[in-house]
């Protein structure tokens, strides 16, 4: 009897925890869904990236800046997510807005990441997307449609978020 009550209590407690976690790690749908604007940007190593080169994969496209606290905060979780997803047809691209390669290089000394850090020094690319504040992250479907937008940082290695990204490959 007591054991059953303990289980019931544990289940109730867990359901409250799940509701709370779900509230903080959301991935809202972008309405209306839009076709991803094409762009060509260099990364911090000088390599050129064209968004359409990633067609057929899920693209996690993050707009950020080194001076932005929530941008810095979410970078390590984005790296951990990338580590888990890089062989599963999911790409992470982080576009720095308005800063130089030297500034981004300095940043990677403190926050080492292995996914591409693209440089939008003129702010031209960020203006093609519905970005109002940093960080903002878009999910682009394998067909090139922008389907989701997260305003503000997220814990990208949260199992539920990883599961959602995996599900978007279909």
């Amino acid at each position: 009897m007591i054991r059953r009550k303990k289980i019931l209590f544990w289940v109730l407690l867990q359901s409250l925890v799940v509701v709370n976690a779900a509230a903080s790690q959301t991935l809202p749908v972008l309405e209306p869904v839009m076709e991803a604007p094409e762009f060509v940007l260099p990364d911090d190593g000088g390599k050129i990236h064209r968004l359409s080169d990633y067609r057929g994969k899920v693209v996690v496209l993050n707009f950020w800046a080194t001076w932005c606290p929530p941008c810095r905060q979410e970078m390590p979780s984005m790296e951990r997510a990338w580590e888990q997803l890089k062989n599963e047809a999911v790409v992470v691209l982080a576009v720095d807005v308005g800063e130089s390669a030297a500034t981004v290089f300095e940043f990677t000394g403190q926050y080492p990441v292995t996914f591409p850090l693209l440089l939008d020094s003129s702010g031209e690319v960020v203006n093609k997307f519905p970005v109002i504040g940093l960080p903002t992250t878009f999910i682009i479907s394998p067909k090139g449609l922008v389907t989701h937008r997260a305003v503000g940082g997220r814990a990208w290695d949260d199992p539920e978020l990883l599961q959602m990204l995996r599900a978007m490959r279909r």
Partner: protein
Amino acid sequence: MNMRDFQCLGLIRLGLGMGLAILCAVRAAVAAELITGTDEEAQLPFWEVRTEAMTLRLVQRLPDQTRGFFLARGFTALQADAIANSCLFQTVFHNISTQGQEGVLRYDLRDWHVNFQGDSRSVKTREHWRDAWSGEKVSPAARLALEWALYPTQQSYQAGDYNWGMTTFDMSPGSLFQLDVSWHQQGKRHTFTIDRIECAPDETREPKDSQ
């Protein structure tokens, strides 16, 4: 069922009942409340308006902190000083609702009012600054930094969304004022007045990690 089982069941019922009562109280608490204190990260005073579905935190920014930020991004000393002395607050709106479309949070800084000594004025937005610097010699990198560092003039937040940014209230360092804030959520407009909010004084302190 023995006596111990019976007592235990009673305790569980009481516990669940209290839990449900707390949840109901939280759900019913539509009215906003104000929390003040010292922000853990910035070690500076904050004012936070909170409801069951949103939080809005305003944290003082020291003029020196802001001066350093904009000097490092290409503004001249005079230009950085003009921004730094405009009473900046680090601002964070967070949609903590779980209500889907009903819970979408919207605000427009142009609806906010700064009240000071019987006078009411608007918040100084990105657009005001853009106009102010239009005739000035400011590098494109510096303009971009200012544009993105300032809090968006208007924004919509889905559940879980939030932004950080600087709001400027165009007051002298150390001024005490009253701030009327407003936002839309759960199908209606909400307003709240923060009394005696204080611009940071222009003093130098030990450096912190700054935006």
